[in-house]
């Protein structure tokens, strides 16, 4: 990084490293104390024992045993993974054309539309999830419109409180995290490449499949990873829009802490979710530089 030609002596490099660590120290200490330590504590607690008298330290594997003994938990975990994957795929299908269209625009129109894309995502996802209740509910826009049109006699109940409404909510709330990295990747695309492909006689679909899509793949992977991570830990959306068939793993974990008071078992379930998240990150890191996912797309 140092532009000077003379090699920096080792001692000066150490001094620079020391200075950098000094600047980073407050954040590092904060995160060690309030992020790493609490996570470590929860991992430890997953080996403790919860009784009606409280959660006591120990080193037992009962909590994990219980996860594997009852097929319900693994089923729920798999179901949650399925919902997260579906959310990711739907978001990709919804977002890709948006990113493509935005990257084709120019000037003021483009700036305004990109800003409008961002804006709703700075509003609480609790609010953005809530807005679907007066649309899909019994008194909601869709039911009341259908009733007024005389197409139905009774409000439909199938619009809400099922897996479909959870998927809708999740895609609505998280789709920006897909659109943005794809848009950034498409923006970097050199128009000369498209022109070259066209001059060589490629058809529009061929240009898309052979040039545009492969070059936007890093954005697709980044976006997919972000949406998957957000969806797999969802709590608010399934709680508000999901019925019995829309329950996700986050709701089951929360239940252990909010109603069952089984903190040790809840911790074990939470560790299971963390293992899944880190496994996905580890697999993804073979295809993208994770650093790029979070830092790269925002320059």
């Amino acid at each position, binding site marked *: 990084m140092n532009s000077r030609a003379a090699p920096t002596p080792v001692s000066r490099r150490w001094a*620079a*490293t020391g200075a*950098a*660590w000094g*600047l*980073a*120290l*407050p*954040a590092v200490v*904060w*995160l060690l104390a*309030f*992020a*790493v330590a*609490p*996570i470590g*504590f*929860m991992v430890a607690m997953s080996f403790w024992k919860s009784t009606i008298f409280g959660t006591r330290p120990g080193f037992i594997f009962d909590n994990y045993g219980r996860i594997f003994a009852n097929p319900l938990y693994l089923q729920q975990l798999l179901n949650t993974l399925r919902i997260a994957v579906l959310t990711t795929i739907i978001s990709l299908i919804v977002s890709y*054309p*948006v990113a*493509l*269209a935005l*990257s*084709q625009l*120019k000037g003021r129109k483009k700036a305004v539309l990109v*800003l*409008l894309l961002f*804006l709703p995502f*700075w*509003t*609480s996802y*609790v*609010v953005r999830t809530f*807005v679907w*209740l*007066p649309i899909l*509910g019994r*008194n909601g826009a869709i039911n*009341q419109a259908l009733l007024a049109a005389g197409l139905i006699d009774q409000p439909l109940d199938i619009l809400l409180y099922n897996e479909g409404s959870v998927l809708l909510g999740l895609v609505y709330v998280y789709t920006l995290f897909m659109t943005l990295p794809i848009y950034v990747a498409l*923006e*970097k*695309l050199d*128009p000369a490449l*498209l022109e070259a492909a*066209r001059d060589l006689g490629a058809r*529009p679909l061929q*240009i898309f499949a052979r040039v545009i899509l492969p070059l936007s793949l890093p954005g697709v992977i980044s976006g997919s990873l972000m949406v998957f*991570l*957000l969806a797999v*830990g969802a709590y608010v959306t399934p709680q508000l829009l999901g019925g019995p068939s829309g329950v996700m793993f*986050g709701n089951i*974990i929360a239940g252990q802490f909010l109603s069952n008071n089984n*903190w040790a078992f*809840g911790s074990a379930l939470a560790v299971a979710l*963390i293992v899944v*998240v880190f496994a996905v*990150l580890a697999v993804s890191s073979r295809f993208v530089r994770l650093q790029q996912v*979070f*830092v790269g797309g925002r*320059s």
Partner: protein
Amino acid sequence: MTVLAAPAPRVRTWPGSRVNGWTLALGIYLIVFYAVLYGPLLMVVLLSFNDSEVTGFPLIGFTTKWYALVLSRPDLLAALGNSFAVGIVAASVATMLALLLSMAFRRVFSGQQIILGLVLLPIVLPGILGGIVLLIFFGYLGIRPGLYSTVLVAHVNWVLPFAFLTLYPRLRGFDKALEEAAMDLGARRHQVLRLVVLPIIRPAVIATFLFSFSLSFDEFIRTVFVTGFDRTVPVVFWGAIVDRLAPELPAMAVIIIAVSTVGSLCGFAISARARNRSH
């Protein structure tokens, strides 16, 4: 952006003039997408003025009573105060930590990757676990839930990575030659910092603060696990949804949307101005 904004020669839009149908289809799709994105939000604005005891349709008449009701509920006013207060403190702490961290990251140093992983941890960790780990951690440390203890920690944890990701690219793009010039002209380190570096990065810092505030103001899932009696706006809003679909919910939603939109729009404006100036 620079590539496509480049002037002559005028590049034909993909996929070529022969099939403008594709461009047209994309344009129509874009309109539909924005309609679906904004439709529900605009509908909530509409419903917030609906003179009906149920949250929903049909529209009966125009009223502003729900806003009057919301703004006269003491728990909500207290929550607004709490959210503003903890938002300002959390955004200040996160921006300060992120600023120091970004300055450290301007040069490559050993251990950088580890620190980066550490900073990204709160983003990678599912939000619900971000709340639960603090619930049990503070619970066993005997720290009572409170606005400036547990809630503040939860908010700074959440906001810090985003503050860093907003601020770091700005500091990385900062021209080191300016600093070196100041040094060569005899300025001391603290003078360089105060007279050269800070004035240039100030807009980016303010923008980061506003984005951080907006994120903190909207935070729910971590807060709900560590909140004490001093509840924040999203927590009160959540309570109102879960208890019963109260008719004043749309008005509450509109107020929340307004606060976070104004906060982030200011952030956008300031960071856009900063970007223009630095180019």
